[in-house]
């Protein structure tokens, strides 16, 4: 998505990305980015919370109109929960037993082959 934003911007149309993966978006380098420190899947705000979603969109719009230059990141002040321990769970290696490694590897190989078959069939 960052590559798409870069291309559209380079061709003369301003862009803003709303996202939750700060390191990946900033690593690529994009014109404008509204970062929400939420679990992946909530780029546009909290579930069933219209106020959170409206506030997230409003911040993105402000970034669109007021960014002083490229690589402008603004972080939403919203918190997913008072307790930040959810951040430790993503690909947590301390929870990987040898049995789990075998299981996850098998799952990943299946996913890859399904995606490949679908891609080649398209």
């Amino acid at each position, binding site marked *: 998505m*960052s*590559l*798409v*934003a*870069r*291309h*559209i*911007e*380079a*061709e003369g*149309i*301003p*862009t*803003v*990305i709303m*996202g939750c*993966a*700060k*390191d*990946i978006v900033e*690593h*690529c*380098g994009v*014109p404008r980015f509204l970062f929400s420190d*939420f*679990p*992946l*899947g*909530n*780029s*546009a*705000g909290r*579930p069933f919370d219209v106020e959170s*979603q*409206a506030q997230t*969109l*409003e911040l*993105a*719009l402000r970034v*669109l*109109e007021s960014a002083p*230059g*490229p*690589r402008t990141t603004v972080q939403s002040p919203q918190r997913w929960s008072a307790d*930040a321990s*959810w*951040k*430790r769970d*993503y*690909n947590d*290696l301390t929870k*990987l037993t040898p049995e789990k*490694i075998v299981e996850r590897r098998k799952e*990943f190989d299946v*996913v*890859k082959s399904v*995606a490949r078959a*679908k*891609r080649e069939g*398209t």
Partner: protein
Amino acid sequence: MATTAPGTNAVFTEEYDVAIPYMQRTRDYYIALGYDNPYRWASFSEVPFTPLGVQLSRARIGLITTAAPYQPGVGDQGPGAPYNAAAKFYQVYSVTTESVPDLRISHVGYDRLHTSAADINTYLPLTRLREAVTAGRIGSLAPHLHGSPTNRSHRATERDAAELLHRCREDGVDAVLLVPS
């Protein structure tokens, strides 16, 4: 544990309470699984910039998503569904913004432990955008929103980006909001 700075009342957050380092965690995870060819994320030293040339209250805004149209017959795509590679798409698509389309995110790696994708408004801000039009905050919404394929080679993504730009121009947008899921 939260800690207090010595001699002050300042309470610091937990050490791990930072933006999740997804690239490092993902690299470490696949190495632990036994894969030895780590994914290389795109990065550039130069970043383009185009100032917004019109007031937002008069601007037409486009929307690009990575969410996928629901496809009957390719498995569970509902809230909390396991990662579903069969629900992926490999061509840019466009749908009207006059109604909310049935788009899902079972085909990407969202955080299934801490969220469930039960509310489309967390990854597709179409209803909130329409409200912003009604409120006069933005001028109008593009007639279509566009879908950007995921899980692509760099070359395929460049092709998709050119196609998405073409469709945004056809819609006559002044700016584009991109929402990865």
